[in-house]
């Protein structure tokens, strides 16, 4: 009877145990890696950046103005035609903070001399694409910027502007 069973099953007891230990070890490695990744996963930043920022009343930003929100890491642009746009201050080249230079009417990055026009389009490389933006919505006359989602874009397009 026992001889019959060994003939029928190709897998010996030793092989079964070897395979089992191997499979369980692989599973353990996967579990530990997964757990480590979860343990070390990016933590969102505290405070203003990473949440909704109430920028202020629509009327407090004259058309053609650019206002910096250092805690929210963005510039609120009120374009000359009346549309709002919030650009992330991080240069798309290597992450330095751009500054608004009213005299030249552009954003300038001191790290590698990239510059961007008033709507964030690349004026001077090496920056590869326009400044990233945050979603803007207007609620009861207040301009609200959602800094939790960074939107990338290659160029400025008129539909990126939000009107009151």
């Amino acid at each position, binding site marked *: 009877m026992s001889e019959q069973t060994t003939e029928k099953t190709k897998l010996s007891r030793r092989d079964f145990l070897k395979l089992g230990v191997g499979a369980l070890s692989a599973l353990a490695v996967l579990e530990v890696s997964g757990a480590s990744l979860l343990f070390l996963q*990016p*933590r969102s*930043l505290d405070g203003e950046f990473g949440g909704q920022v109430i920028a202020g009343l629509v009327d407090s930003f004259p058309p053609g103005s650019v206002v910096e929100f250092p805690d929210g890491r963005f510039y609120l642009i009120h374009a000359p035609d009346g549309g709002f746009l919030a650009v992330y201050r991080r240069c798309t080249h290597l*992450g330095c903070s751009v500054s608004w230079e009213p005299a030249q009417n552009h954003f300038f*990055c*001191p*790290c590698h001399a990239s510059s961007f026009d008033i709507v964030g389009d690349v004026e001077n*490389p*090496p920056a590869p694409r326009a400044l990233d933006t945050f979603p803007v919505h207007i609620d009861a006359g207040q301009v609200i910027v959602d800094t939790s989602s960074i939107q990338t874009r290659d160029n400025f397009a008129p539909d990126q502007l939000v009107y009151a």
Partner: protein
Amino acid sequence: MSENNQTWRQRIFYTTQTDDRSRMRAVANNLILHLHPTKVPAPALRWTYTWGLGGLSATLALLLIITGVILTFRYDASVERAYTSIQYLETQVAFGSLVRALHHWSANLLVVTAFLHLIRVFLTGGFKLGRSTNWIIGLVLLLIVVAFNFTGYLLPWDQLAYWAITVGTSLLSYVPLVGTAVANFLLGGPEVGQAALRNFYAIHVAVLPALLVMMMSYHFWKVRKDGGISQPPTEPGERVERLTTIPHLVQIEFAAAAVLILGLFVWAAFVPAPLEALADPSHPTNPAKAAWYFLGLQELLLHMHPLAALLLPGIILGAFVAIPYLDKQEDNIGRYFRSAVGKQIALLAALYAIGLIPLLVLLDEYWLDLPALLPGLPTLISNGLIPLALTLGGLAAVYLLFRTTNKANKSEALVGLFVFVMVSLLLLTLIGIFFRGPNMALVLPF
């Protein structure tokens, strides 16, 4: 003399025996001889062969571990308190400034000695005759040293630290598909902040030291396993003089370590480690430069798309890993530059690089504008893949030039190529340190 009558000094250094034979037996279980063999070939002890670079690097590593452990007692890895704790260390803590200066300057010097050690080993063919594994372990150790420096750089949380790490990690996001995810994982978020400081601190004081100690032990063990450091092959019947490790090798090692430590103490006593203003995430410094040993790479960034500027050092590193499999000629091991022809080619290669690199930098800065010449192409190709292909083509041309006009063999031509790459890296680094001013424009340093 019985065991019990020996002084501690005699026990440690085995100085009671007078003849070589009994000395060798006595020292068989000596601690030092776990590291070194009992006898070493006399030519391997020549200072002008090794320049003591491996030993100096090991001494620096030890000094860095000791000073690093001391610093952890006073350093606070939080955004609010990191900078203050460094200021406190500099001004209030007894010997705080000295310990930090020792740590800082040793770390900088270690980059230099580790790099020079790599150059020495390459030029004398130290990766040959079964030493390929240890060559690769050495490369891993170099990467560990660089990672140590990169993570340690952020910890003071000053302007220099903040922007160097911001620029350095932003580079990662140009790696296709996984880049941004890896950068976010490393920083613990989209920007350099509290999570990044914590991560870097943990990597710097726990992960990397563990890796370093493991790889260093492996490296030393492998040197013995491979039959000692590289030496020229002996002629049939030729006998190389062999000297006992104690005292001949150990004396040199202790003397070199003592001079190094003394020099560092004097230097650190007079030159404190730099500390700039508190990190300000709204206002980058102008110019925002990386640490000096990354300025060669940063200089590349000014001329190429970041992906190309990352690929080029990656390809060169890959070539370094492959060197033992490219240069298999083993009879020229243990001789600087392989041969007289190799020496001549090395000199030529250095001259080519000195002539060519500054010229190319000036050309690209003032006249050449590839994206404007090729307006239809995305910048990744016009400013990235095309300059990368041109650079690699140039390197291949240098190699072929040595092979044809100088009639060099493969081994000698590779020496030429290696020297060309190293001198180019040195020149790019010097340009980055001294000739880049505000907005990273070319300036004169005086």
